[in-house]
């Protein structure tokens, strides 16, 4: 029996095991929505803005490892998900976005709600397709899920014209995909892996630098094994947090622009850098010419373009991180040496790192007047017994969360790294909560980021999704204000938010619990009350607008040249002195 395009769409999703679709309807996708509401297998979450749908699908994907699915209409529906696509592309999130398109006979005529969906999304998707014939629909959907979730994952957009969703075709869901131009390398080159293992055995000051790739490839066990048999310390990028237990003695926490002092110092002085599923982003490397100057570099990545893109690699290994590490561990175990010997060999190195750690630990001073954001994150970390899925937005609060909320498991840290999308956190938390209704999902955000997608509060309320929103409200775009203080003589151009909504009333308006803490003494009780509450909660916590995030590698600075506290002239300015700091325009300043 023939099925309509819309029926084929739903059947195909069912075959792919899709449980949830996020999105918003519109004219050209009505046929699809009509079929969607007549079936029970797939839950549809109606968002209040398409950007929310894209980020929810991302949150769902990051927390589960499965592809997130969004369904939106043509024109503005599609243009509203572009940020989500670009975010997913940067952070390698498996996402399949279905967009409606005007009927094929109208394409190119500037029809109502028409946009060039594949044209607009081309630079921010791994792959995209306009389906012109209903007979190709099932095959295209099969390929879309395969491409989105295999190799280096990423977003795939499938554009479905209205007439294609109405037309009929025989339906048989293909059981396999064969794409002659797409065949990711999984197993690494055996010779290269052996070479790397030999270097690892020899190294005296090695360090493992892990990115998001280790999480997508489910390589946490292999990574831990590698670190433990070789006794090599592990640092993680913002995207890699959770791939190695943050509380493990070999964990050095996050590196990079706001990484810990000891971590960046260890990077700078290492003699062997083992990069695992990471891409040497400028926020990690700082000034490239002075990055890891003494290191031999082993780089494992499934995406060949990540290797030698910004930084050289002596031993490049293209392959799936899990597969490569597993093989490497077998070789390492077969070589001479055991963990005790390895530990002895690395003892001076670990001692050195420990000395750096003691010299400059992460620190802040909490008084009894103003709440420090770090204090809130630390309290949250204690109160949740370190077990929560944490979604963040972008800015200072994100960095404080990365520094103080030490995740122990992969897929529990959802953040926007590459694109740095403010507004990501809250919808991502909803997506994760939909996937795991019984787990604790925190959204650590700020008043600036939260206001970018707060319309989705109604989704949390409607579906009783108990997301705990911890809003670090300092009334400023904190990171922008910090840069202005450090590099623009304290001229706060457009960074002070001035008029803010009453977030407790706002929560109330959406029918969820709102709580507020204004003094340090109130923080713990508010957090406790919020965490205890059964439904969604918005905790508005007023924090110090002038707290800066340290350590900090100024953009374009070298890794070992960190600022550890406010510079003297800024301290002086805080006390009413002149705010003077010369900026050498252009000197080593990276595109910020």
């Amino acid at each position, binding site marked *: 029996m023939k099925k309509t395009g819309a029926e084929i769409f739903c059947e195909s999703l069912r075959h792919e095991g899709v449980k949830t679709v996020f999105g918003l309807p519109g004219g050209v996708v009505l046929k699809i929505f009509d079929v969607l509401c007549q079936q029970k297998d797939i839950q549809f979450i109606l968002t209040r803005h398409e950007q929310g749908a894209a980020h929810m699908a991302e949150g769902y994907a990051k927390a589960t490892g499965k592809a997130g699915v969004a369904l939106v209409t043509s024109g503005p529906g599609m243009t509203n998900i572009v940020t989500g696509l670009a975010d997913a592309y940067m952070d390698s999130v498996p996402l399949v976005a279905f967009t409606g398109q005007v009927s094929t006979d109208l394409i190119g005529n500037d029809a109502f709600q028409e946009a060039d969906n*594949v*044209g607009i999304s*081309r*630079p921010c998707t*791994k*792959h995209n397709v*306009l389906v012109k014939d209903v007979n190709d629909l099932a095959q295209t959907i099969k390929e879309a899920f395969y*491409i989105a979730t295999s190799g280096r994952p990423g977003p795939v957009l499938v554009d479905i014209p209205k007439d294609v969703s109405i037309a009929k075709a025989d339906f048989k869901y293909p059981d396999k995909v064969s*794409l*002659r*131009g*797409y*065949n990711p*390398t999984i197993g*690494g*080159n055996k010779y*290269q892996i052996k070479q790397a293992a030999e270097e690892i055995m020899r190294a005296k000051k090695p360090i493992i630098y892990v990115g998001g790739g280790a999480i997508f490839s489910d390589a946490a066990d292999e990574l831990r094994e590698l670190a433990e048999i070789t006794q090599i310390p592990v640092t993680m990028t913002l995207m890699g947090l959770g791939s190695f237990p943050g509380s493990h003695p070999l964990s050095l926490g996050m590196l990079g622009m706001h990484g810990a002092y000891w971590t960046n110092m260890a990077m700078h002085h290492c003699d062997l850098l083992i990069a695992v599923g990471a891409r040497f982003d400028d926020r990690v490397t700082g000034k490239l010419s002075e990055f890891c100057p003494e290191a031999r570099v082993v780089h494992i990545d499934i*995406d*060949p*373009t990540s*290797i*030698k*893109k910004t930084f050289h690699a002596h031993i*490049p*290994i*293209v*392959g799936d991180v899990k597969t490569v590490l597993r093989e490497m561990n077998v070789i390492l175990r077969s070589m001479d040496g055991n963990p005790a010997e390895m530990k002895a060999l690395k003892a001076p190195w670990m001692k050195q790192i420990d000395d750096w750690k003691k010299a400059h630990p992460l620190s802040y001073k909490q008084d009894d007047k103003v709440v420090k954001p770090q204090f809130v994150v630390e309290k949250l970390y204690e109160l949740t017994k370190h077990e929560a899925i944490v979604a963040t937005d972008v800015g200072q609060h994100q960095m404080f969360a990365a520094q103080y909320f030490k995740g122990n498991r992969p897929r529990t840290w959802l953040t926007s790294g590459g694109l740095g999308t403010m507004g990501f956190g809250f919808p991502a938390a909803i997506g994760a909560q939909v996937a795991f209704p019984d787990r604790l999902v925190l959204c650590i955000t700020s008043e600036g980021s939260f206001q970018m997608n707060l319309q989705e509060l109604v989704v949390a309320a409607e579906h009783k999704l108990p997301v705990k929103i911890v809003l670090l409200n300092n009334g400023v775009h904190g990171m922008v204000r910090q840069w202005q203080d450090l590099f623009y003589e304290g001229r706060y151009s457009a960074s002070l938010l001035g008029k803010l909504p009453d977030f407790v009333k706002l929560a109330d308006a959406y029918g969820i619990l709102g709580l507020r803490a204004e003094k340090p003494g109130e923080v713990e009780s508010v957090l406790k009350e919020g965490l205890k509450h059964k439904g969604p909660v918005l905790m508005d916590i007023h924090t110090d607008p002038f707290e800066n995030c340290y350590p900090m590698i100024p953009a374009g600075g070298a890794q070992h040249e960190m600022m550890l506290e406010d510079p003297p002239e800024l301290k002086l300015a805080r006390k009413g002195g002149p705010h003077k700091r010369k900026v050498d325009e252009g000197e080593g300043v990276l595109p910020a």
Partner: protein
Amino acid sequence: MEHIISVLVENKFGVLARVAGLFSARGYNIESLSVAPTLDPTTSMITIVTVGDDRIIEQIMKQLNKVVEVLKVVDLTETHFLDRETALIKVHTKPEHRDEAIRIADIFRAKIVDSSSTTYTVEITGDVDKVEALINLLKPLGIKELIRTGRIAISRETTRTASPRREPALLKS
């Protein structure tokens, strides 16, 4: 350094845009570009002339390989190859220059494919040096219009067995 890259792609709409978009998005240059179907009607060959240091060319090759519809990428500059370009050159010919124009065309084994009372249209095929040399010689007569195909290239059969210098793991099979 200049590189000629052959890119075998699926013959589908939007593929050229993806390949060209990759160059513009990452700030790579396209010096010339030519596209045409191959013997197999489901594929097309894109020949791109680009300029960059080794690091950039390596990235270009890898980025091209990453495109789902790209089937094969070859940097011909790494092997022995032949390249050709065709140009059609419409020259002004005053009566006293008409013989000179024919003489120049003859020297280059170029053909005069169209003629009017005041112009000749010269067709030339050759490597880029030959085409440019002819253009330079015709310039003094006054070139009214010039159109070039962009370069196409093919590897020489005798050296086909020479192994590429690139790491095998980084290339698509």
